[in-house]
């Protein structure tokens, strides 16, 4: 059935993506060169949804500023989730605005219009809910699903079991009775989950339909996953900018010097500037108003808005937040490293560095693979940074 309204969940920080989420929630982190959330909203609008409800919370100013009062001419209503008490609690915030069957979509996972349409088409008024499911050998890392025909028989968060091959894509079609179902669902550690409410429906014998959907589904759990998301999107050319030559996408307002080299696949955003002899790409996304100065090399990296890379600097396998500065001759050589997040060590990750909003790597500094640089932190001229550089800290020679 056709659904007019969608509730988009965009209130959570995404703590495992720190330090990139210091000033904005995960839905606003870059998928290639624009926010993940923009892919979600585009998918909904292209699928014919014209009543958008955004649940916002953590750093909500940033979401509201990015999306504005309308998105591509569709009205956007904001619902504030003051405390982030789970996805079910988030959906409840929109309760008073919805009175017919509707969609719920995660705001932090890249999906396509075709997926949204498939879920809508499969859903009928007699179903308690319909979930989009995607085949993936990484299902066990996300919400895994078991299907019997077109019925979902099991829904389990991050099972410790590699036998699952289907994951919950985070696109749900639901009846308005869902709100009451969520309310009667038990809390876990004080939080109320949408998936628990749906699991209760399955246990209660109500029809929860699963529809296999195809297309690009991509998300980031850890900061370095943003490199994979960008690579996935670039591989299929799912970016806004016009294709200048095969796999080279350059916005009309960007200025690329005649002597610069763009290696496909690569996307260059609005107002970006690339100087002479610079080499950008492959698998690289430059956000709006970014600069890559003369002779710099940027490879397999995602540079978010306002980032500047100085002359002759090298940036490989790196994710930068907004307004990051990499000075002349600085080196982020990239490669594999063990990355420590909290108490967990992720071994052998391919990561040049994560540099959070407005971090600075000054001229001739070197950043070891796997380094996490906090917001407003500074690696001084000629210094060597390794491991974790906390927010506003300074690394000196």
């Amino acid at each position, binding site marked *: 059935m056709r659904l007019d309204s969608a509730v988009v969940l965009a209130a959570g920080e995404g703590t495992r993506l720190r330090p990139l989420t210091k000033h904005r929630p995960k839905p606003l982190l870059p998928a290639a060169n624009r926010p993940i959330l923009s892919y979600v909203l585009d998918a909904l609008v292209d699928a014919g949804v014209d009543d958008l409800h955004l649940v916002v919370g953590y750093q909500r100013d940033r979401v*509201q500023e990015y999306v504005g*009062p309308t998105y591509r001419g569709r009205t956007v209503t*904001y619902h504030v989730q003051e405390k982030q008490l789970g996805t079910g609690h988030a959906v409840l915030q929109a309760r008073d605005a919805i009175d017919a069957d509707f969609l719920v979509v995660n705001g932090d996972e890249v999906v396509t219009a075709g997926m949204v349409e498939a879920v809508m088409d499969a859903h009928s008024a007699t179903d308690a809910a319909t979930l989009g499911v995607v085949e993936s050998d990484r299902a066990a890392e996300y919400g895994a699903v078991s299907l019997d025909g077109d019925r979902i028989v099991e829904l389990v968060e991050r099972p410790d079991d590699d036998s699952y091959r289907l994951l919950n894509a985070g696109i749900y079609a639901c009846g308005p009775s869902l709100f009451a179902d969520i309310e009667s669902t038990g809390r876990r550690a004080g939080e109320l989950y949408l998936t628990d409410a749906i699991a209760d429906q399955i246990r209660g014998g109500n029809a929860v339909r699963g529809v296999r959907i195809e297309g690009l589904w991509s998300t980031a759990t850890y900061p370095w996953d943003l490199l994979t998301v960008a690579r996935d999107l670039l591989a299929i050319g799912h970016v806004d900018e016009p294709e200048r030559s095969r796999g080279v996408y350059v916005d009309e307002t960007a200025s690329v010097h005649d002597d610069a080299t763009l290696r496909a696949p690569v996307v260059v955003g609005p107002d970006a*500037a690339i*100087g002479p002899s610079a080499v950008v790409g492959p698998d690289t996304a430059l956000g709006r*108003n970014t600069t890559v100065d003369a002779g710099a090399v940027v490879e397999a990296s995602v540079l978010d808005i306002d980032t*500047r890379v100085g002359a002759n600097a090298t940036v490989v396998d790196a994710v930068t937040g907004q*307004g990051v500065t990499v000075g002349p001759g600085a080196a982020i050589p990239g490669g594999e490293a063990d990355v420590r997040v909290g108490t967990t060590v992720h071994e052998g990750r391919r990561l040049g560095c994560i540099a959070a909003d407005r971090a600075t790597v000054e001229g001739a500094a070197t950043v070891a693979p796997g380094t996490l640089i906090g917001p407003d932190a500074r690696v001084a001229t000629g210094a060597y940074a390794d491991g974790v550089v906390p927010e506003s800290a300074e690394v000196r020679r």
Partner: protein
Amino acid sequence: MCGIIGYVGDADETLSVLLDGLSNLEYRGYDSAGVAVGGDGLRVEKRAGQLDALEAALHDATVSGPVGIAHTRWSTHGPPTDDNAHPHTDERGRVAVVHNGIIENYRELRDELERAGVTFASETDTEVVPHLIARELRGGLAPEAAVRAAADRLDGSYALAVVVAGTDALFAVRHDSPLVLGVGEGESFVASDVPAFLQRTRDVVYLDDDEFVRLDADGWTVTDADGAAVEKEVRTVEWEAEQTGKSGYDHYMLKEIHEQPVSLRQCISGRVDELDGRITVEELDDVGAPETVQFVACGTSYHAALYGARLLRAAGIPANAYYAHEYATAPAPVSGADLVVGVTQSGETADTLSALREAGGRGAETLALTNVVGSTAARESDHVVYIRAGPEIGVAATKTFSSQLVGVNLLTARLAGRGVDRRRDLIDELRGVPSDVQAVLDGSTAAAVVEEFVDAAAFFFLGRGLDYPVALEGALKFKEITYEHAEGFAAGELKHGPLALVTSNTPVFAVITGDGEAARKTLGNVKEVEARDAPVVVVTDGAAEAGRYADHVLEIPRTDERLAPLLANVQLQLVAYHMAARLERAIDKPRNLAKSVTVE
């Protein structure tokens, strides 16, 4: 100032179009509102107070008719009462008129009409108009001719929209007051401002002075003062009606403060060429090398003008800033070798338009620095530079001021060095401004700082050099929306008088950017107020280590000395906003103020 909306189209839609239009014009500030719906008869309702009062008055009636006009009034002649609200009518209720502007000869006209036995129902200047039209109708003129004849009698400024009972047409005319025409499918509109009808059409015609419009079921025609048809270009505006929504923010002002990184990127887009080391502003290609530059502006725009004049002088070009209202009556000497720059967000500020006309009349080249494409200032000046800030709804200007500051930097770079910046001193930092502003927004502690001063007696703002206009703007923003007493001073002027006002209950906000002579001297002034036990808040990039002498510090990132004041101002925007929010003021519509002041 006041808002006008007029409609010709579907009889059943007229009232809702008018009420929606009024609500879209609310942001301009008003104290009364009214509508007139015409056709065979004429129904008029008007009320003092908010739109709710008007809507309640219309609640039980089925009002329909193919033409209608409506108005939000901001009192100039006579207090806000039901009688003084627009539309005004003639004695028989057959002619209804809404008006923006001031009719300067209304006293003579009113005396003349009263001598002829006309009874007036209000104290407004506007009411002479329907009586004049009624007299011409009685004299045998057709409605269109009667409206023209009446308009011929008026001196002053006006945008008028008129409906006459028994006529399915709407007539409108402007003189020194803005009026735009909206072209829809099977319907058309007039309004003082595009957002009034933007939900229904984006195709607009900007009317020039003394042009006359007739809207009827067949469409629209524009004629000049002599009645000859005028070909007008239909433009499509790119703003979205919903851009006038608050998108989840408590106030438009806060939304607009947060939009600044985006609006600043928009302002510099395509104008700063990183690769070439060149600043180019296409619109300035045919501007020569003026001997002097004079800025004319009012309010917040005047502070941008003061800053611009300082930038130009520092770059070696003689420049001064004048209040436009002073300039219009006491102009500075000017010749064909000089450039006069009018800074006006709306492009409709009456005082600034007058000053530009005065300067243009005396041979100077004129340039409008404005946000509104197709505005009167843009059309009347020799050159125009758009600041591209997008629509600003909050009465207190925020993002447009930031974009004005960038605009005068572009102008200065172009005039002083023909835009060449080979070392990219300014270009690098200009491209960094959006990110620097984002840093201020992400890290500001203004909300906590104002909490300390909720009961203060008065607030003073100090600055020197380029920081002085920011001190003035900080004080203006603060007084506009908090209603607390606030004054900005040139830091050096302090001990020549204002220091007498400083006590332990008057917080002093000092803007100190860079570590040059100006910063060091202002720091000396900070010590002077500290000695009087005044609490001190410094807004600083830390270069002069001013924080050591302050009770509170509002930090900004380091950048070029020309751009640091812009960042400091963002902190002061947040100071004003958070204090006003704390005091629960009507932040987007402060009392007695209007967004664009279209009367002198």
